C-alpha cells in the first residue's frame, strides 16, 4: 500500500549519468546498487569513481533487497511539497545486507507510521507513483508473502 495522498507536486527523481542505472532497474522492479568491478565494494548513492581504488569501472548489480532499519523517523509536519496530505508517514534509512554501511532511504510501507522499529528486518517492495516512477520501498519482512 503506497503512503496515502500522493500528489503530482511531489519531487520526482531525476536520473543523471551516474544514477540512471539505479532508476532503470527500479523501473523493472529490481533493486540494483552500484558496485566497483575491481574491489567489489558497493556504493549508494552512486559515486563518480571508487574512492579507495579510484576505478571508474562501476556497474549496477542486483541485490537481495533485504536489510535492517538503521534509523527511522515519522514525519508529522512536512517541508516537502506534495506530501502535505500524507502526514504522518514513516521514512527510514535501511542498511542493506550486502555490506555494512550501505544505506538506502525509503518509506516504510505495509505497517502503520511509527510501528516499525530500529533493528527490524525489512524487504524491498516496489510502488508506482502518480508520475509512473517506480520507487523502491521497504516493508516489514514478515509482511511480504
Amino acid at each position, binding site marked *: 500500500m503506497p503512503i496515502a495522498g500522493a500528489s503530482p507536486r511531489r519531487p520526482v527523481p531525476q536520473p543523471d549519468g551516474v544514477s540512471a542505472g539505479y532508476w532503470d532497474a527500479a523501473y523493472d522492479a529490481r533493486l540494483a546498487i552500484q558496485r566497483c568491478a575491481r574491489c567489489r565494494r558497493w556504493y549508494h548513492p552512486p559515486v563518480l569513481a571508487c574512492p579507495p581504488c579510484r576505478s571508474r569501472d562501476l556497474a549496477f548489480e542486483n541485490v537481495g533487497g533485504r536489510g535492517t532499519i538503521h534509523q527511522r*523517523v515519522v514525519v508529522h509536519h512536512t517541508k516537502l511539497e506534495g506530501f502535505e496530505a500524507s502526514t504522518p508517514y514513516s521514512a527510514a534509512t535501511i542498511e542493506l545486507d550486502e555490506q555494512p554501511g550501505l544505506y538506502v532511504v525509503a518509506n516504510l510501507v505495509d505497517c502503520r507510521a511509527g510501528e516499525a522499529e530500529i533493528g527490524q528486518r525489512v524487504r524491498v517492495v516496489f510502488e508506482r507513483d502518480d508520475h509512473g516512477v517506480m*520507487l523502491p520501498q521497504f516493508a516489514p519482512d514478515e509482511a511480504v508473502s
Partner: protein
Amino acid sequence: MRSGALRRVVVSGTGYSRIARHLDEPIGLLAVEAAQRALDEAGLTVDDVDGLANFPAAGHAGAGSVDGVDHVGTGYLSGALPSRNLRWQASVQPGDFISSMIAGMHAIATGTCEVVLVWRAMHNPRGRRYGQVTGGAAVGEYEFTAPYGVGDAVSRYAMPYSRYLGKYGARREQMATFVVNNRRNAAVNPDAVFYQRPITVEDYLGARMIVEPFSILDCDMPVDGAGAVVLTTEANARSARYPAAHLSGHATLGVAHGIPANTILEDHQQAAAQGAAALWSTTTLTPSDVDSANLYDGFSYFTYLYLEALGFCGEGEAADFIQGGRIAVDGKLPLNTSGGSLGMGRVHGPPQVIESVRQLQGRCGERQIVRPGVILAVTGQPNYCAGYVLLTREPVPPRPRRAEPA
C-alpha cells in the same frame, strides 16, 4: 612563512542586532547593526577594519540569493560598512561562524591583518517558505530522499537522533533536562528570542511533533538577526571596553560521508571525533580544564554528539551525563548559558561564541557562571565543516608543533 613568530589573536568586541521571529529590516541592516556594536565594544572604527570573514550561506533550503536580503556576504558588508583600509576578505563554505573566525585568526596571526570583522546574519521570510523543498525534479542530494518526503533540515537530523535513542536506550525525557535548561538560560538573556519565556518538562514532553523523534522544541526557531565579533591582536585590544578573550585552541573540519540530505549517526560520530582530535591537538588544555561549554544545538541532538566526541563523557552517555544539575549555570559544566540556539533563535554561531566571550568578561548577569577561565564553543554540524574554539581569559601557550622533518 616559517620565519617570524605567529601573533596571538583575541576577540575584543562582540555585538548582536535585534533578534526576533520577523523584523521589517533586511538582514543586511541587522549585520551592520551587530558589526557596529562589536566595533564600539572593541573601541575601534570602521576604518580600523582591514579584514572581513564570514560563512555566507543562506540559512535554509529554498532561500533566495540576494546579498543583504537572503544572506549577508563580504560583498554586501564591504559596501555597506566601507573601510578605507580593507585588504583581505574570505568566505568560508562549507563552514560555519567559527570556521570563518579561524580564517580571520590566521590572517591576523600571520600579520596580514590587524582587525578582522566576522559576522553571521540569518533571515526568516514570512509565510511557509522557510526550509521548503519544492516539488518537481529531485536532483543532487535530494534525488534519493525527496521522493520519499524527507531530506529537509529537520528529517536529515531526526534520522541519526532516532538511531541514538534506539542504540543507547536514551529517552526523550532525558533530553527535556537539556532543553528546559536552555530555555531557563534564555529567559534571563535579553538578547534571546525566548527572553522571559522559560518552559517546563511537561511543556517539552507535550510539544507538537515535527519529525519524530524531534518535536518543535528540539528545533531552533527561525529568526531575523545577526551577530558579529572583532578579532585583533593583544596590543590592538587595549582600546576595548571589556577584557579580550584569547583564542587558545581551534579546529574547523567536516569530513563528508554519504549525502548531506541523509546523515547517519555513526558518520556524525566519526566526523565529530576527527574535529575534536584536531581541536585538542592545538592546545595544552584538556576537557577537564573547560569551565563551561556552548555546544551547537540548532537541533537538540547535536549537543549529545559534541559532549561525547569532545571527551566530556563516553559514547552513548550524554543523556545520563546532563542530568542532576551538572549543566545548570551553577553546575559542574554549565552548558549553553546563552540559551543556545534553541533559546536565542536560529542565528547559527553567535549564541555560542559571543556568549563564551561575555561569560569570560563577567557580563552575563543572572546567568553568569563563577570565575570562568576556559570556555569551549562549537558551531555547525560535524559532516559540514563544524568549528571548534577554546576561548580563555588568560593566554594559554599553544601545544608545541611536531618537529620539522630533518
